[in-house]
């Protein structure tokens, strides 16, 4: 369908540069990282030198990429591994974005240059052991005590959690949910790596625990107002995932296509000549292409300032589902080789299970869309008639309940 014809020369150059980086620096090590459940944090400074952290911001000399180019960057990173894309998404969209959007000048000066260079790592603490899809009910609390805030609670499933130098932590206060910056080494703040994952093994996932953790009063993100600030932040990351999912799908598709052309079976013919194999490949390329046009339109809406949560939900839900289905089909085409890490397919298949669930589960995103089209949020306790009328007028309220994971 010549999707490339929609891209400018500059957008293609950016995509090709990141693709080359992934080919040369990520792919040669990623299977071993996956085997060892090791995040290649040594790549962070290189990612910083390429300006891949905070690439769509303009402050502090950041490149200010357009929305399509930024999406293509995420696509190419996830073509390598969902964990690498997650590392960049979290740093850029879930740490730098809230600091730039809700932070004080001092906070920006202190953290943004280090985060942009990849010499400092950040994480985003919203999800809790008991609250994933419903972050509004979080238990973590922050209490003001003189010139300090005192945090108590726990966060789970936190990408970069146990290696982060700074955590953006969301906690309930007397004035509603607010965001805080908690630095590594603060007394009462402990982080630990979560082990036993079968997915995103080349990415650090951690638990954060706060026990009477005292942070300076100025570490509150002054612009945060309620859980909506956290969800506004998540929307940025989800935008990247809409494109990233396609990257994973493309890698599986291309691996399957190449394999089908080479693999000879029955009368010396490549399996690519078999109708059942062709049907699988046709399904994959069709869905990937549809996904590309979907995110291209999403980029246009974002650039025009018209992107609504339900738009992001539609794209995240669809494209990650496409990636999940493509991983399955590619695995089938590869036969027994499909379960070996000699090929990237099974790693993508495992990774996509996380992506399917984090940043708003597939089902919750369906409900965000459902709430937008019906005006009736279905994932809260039954509403009064007055609430239903209000919800019909304000679909963003419905979207506000869909949190989960980082």
């Amino acid at each position: 369908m010549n999707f490339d014809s929609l891209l400018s020369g500059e957008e293609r150059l950016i995509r090709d540069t990141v693709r080359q980086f992934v080919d040369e620096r990520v792919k040669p090590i990623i299977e071993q990282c996956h085997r060892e459940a090791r995040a290649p944090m040594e790549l962070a400074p290189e990612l910083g030198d390429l300006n891949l952290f905070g690439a769509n911001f303009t402050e502090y000399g950041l490149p200010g990429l357009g929305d399509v180019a930024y999406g293509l960057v995420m696509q190419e990173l996830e073509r390598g591994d969902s964990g690498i894309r997650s590392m960049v998404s979290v740093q850029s969209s879930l740490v730098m974005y809230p600091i730039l959007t809700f932070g004080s000048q001092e906070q920006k000066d202190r953290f943004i240059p280090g985060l942009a260079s990849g010499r400092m790592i950040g994480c985003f603490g919203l999800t809790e052991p008991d609250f994933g899809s419903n972050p509004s009910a979080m238990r973590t609390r922050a209490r003001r005590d003189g010139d300090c805030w005192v945090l108590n609670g726990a966060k789970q499933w936190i990408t970069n959690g146990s290696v982060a130098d700074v955590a953006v932590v969301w906690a309930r206060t007397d004035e509603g949910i607010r965001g805080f910056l908690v630095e590594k080494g603060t007394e009462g703040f402990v982080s630990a790596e979560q082990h036993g994952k079968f997915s995103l093994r080349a990415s650090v996932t951690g638990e954060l625990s706060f026990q009477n953790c005292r942070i300076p009063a100025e570490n509150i993100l002054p612009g945060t107002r309620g859980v909506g600030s956290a969800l506004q932040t998540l929307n940025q990351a989800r935008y990247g995932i809409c494109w990233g999912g396609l990257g994973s799908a493309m890698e599986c598709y291309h691996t399957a296509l190449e394999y089908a052309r080479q693999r000879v079976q029955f009368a010396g013919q490549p399996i690519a000549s078999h109708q059942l194999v062709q049907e699988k490949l046709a399904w994959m390329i069709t869905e990937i292409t549809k996904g590309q046009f979907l995110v291209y339109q999403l980029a246009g809406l974002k650039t025009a300032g018209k992107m609504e949560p339900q738009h992001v939900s539609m794209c995240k839900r669809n494209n990650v589902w496409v990636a999940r289905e493509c991983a399955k089909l590619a695995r089938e085409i590869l036969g027994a080789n499909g379960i070996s890490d000699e090929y990237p397919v099974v790693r993508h298949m495992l990774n996509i299970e996380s992506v399917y669930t984090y940043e708003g589960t597939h089902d919750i995103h369906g409900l965000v869309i459902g709430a937008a089209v019906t005006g009736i949020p279905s994932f809260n306790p039954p509403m009064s008639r007055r609430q239903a009328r209000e919800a019909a007028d304000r679909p963003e309220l419905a979207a506000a309940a869909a949190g989960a994971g980082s």
Partner: protein
Amino acid sequence: MRIGVCIKQVPDTDSHLRIADSGRGVDDSNLNWVISSCDLCALEEALLLAEAEVARGAERPELVVFSLGPARVEEALRKALALGVDRALHLVDEALQGGDAIADGRALAAALAGERCDLVLTGAQSDDLGQAATPAVIAAILSCPYAWLVMAVELDSRSKSLRIVRELEGGMNEVLGLELPALLAIQAGINRPRFASLRGTLQARKKPLRREDCSGLGVDPGLVGAAGAGIEIEAVSLPPAGAGGVVIDGASAEAAAGELIAHLEREAVL
């Protein structure tokens, strides 16, 4: 101080090549185009030389990239600008198409002379045709010192000289001193070309890229492009597929290795 780098845009080596219907070239309608790998090393070397000059407190040399070819070549020039080159010159003219090394060398030499480059870097050979001829032609026309298969470069801009290492056969190296202006044909692997940063890529859009045709270059259209070429490609073909291979069916790794060694000895490789 001005350093010129000549680059060539070639099909990506991963491309699936198809012979064009004319039978005299490759069908270029569906290819990925990239900068030839030696030329990328030449670009990187120019960037490193410029950085070294700055590091020792000297003025940063201006870096100018040159390429001859159709409109698509602009993408290669933009990439060079994204990597950190200051400006680009695109030799684009219907009359410049279809040249051989001598015809292309004439056009490039005219462009380089017009820019008065103190040092010119090129790749040692291109990934597609691999003739390794164009840099020698340019050096001959410019009447400047020339070295091929350059493995290391030290620039002394104060004394306007170079100290370089050349690769010879049999693992030997040769160290040469050259006076500027000079032309160096860089061997692949001399450095590891950097990735263009996103900031560099966006800045590339604002850097000057000039297009020159035959009249702008001051070259006679009869001496460049197809008209100036003494060589005409009559036919190209792909090698016959699948002939000559031997499959070793070893029951164990040791047996297979033994059979492989026997084959290599029979074929007089060992």
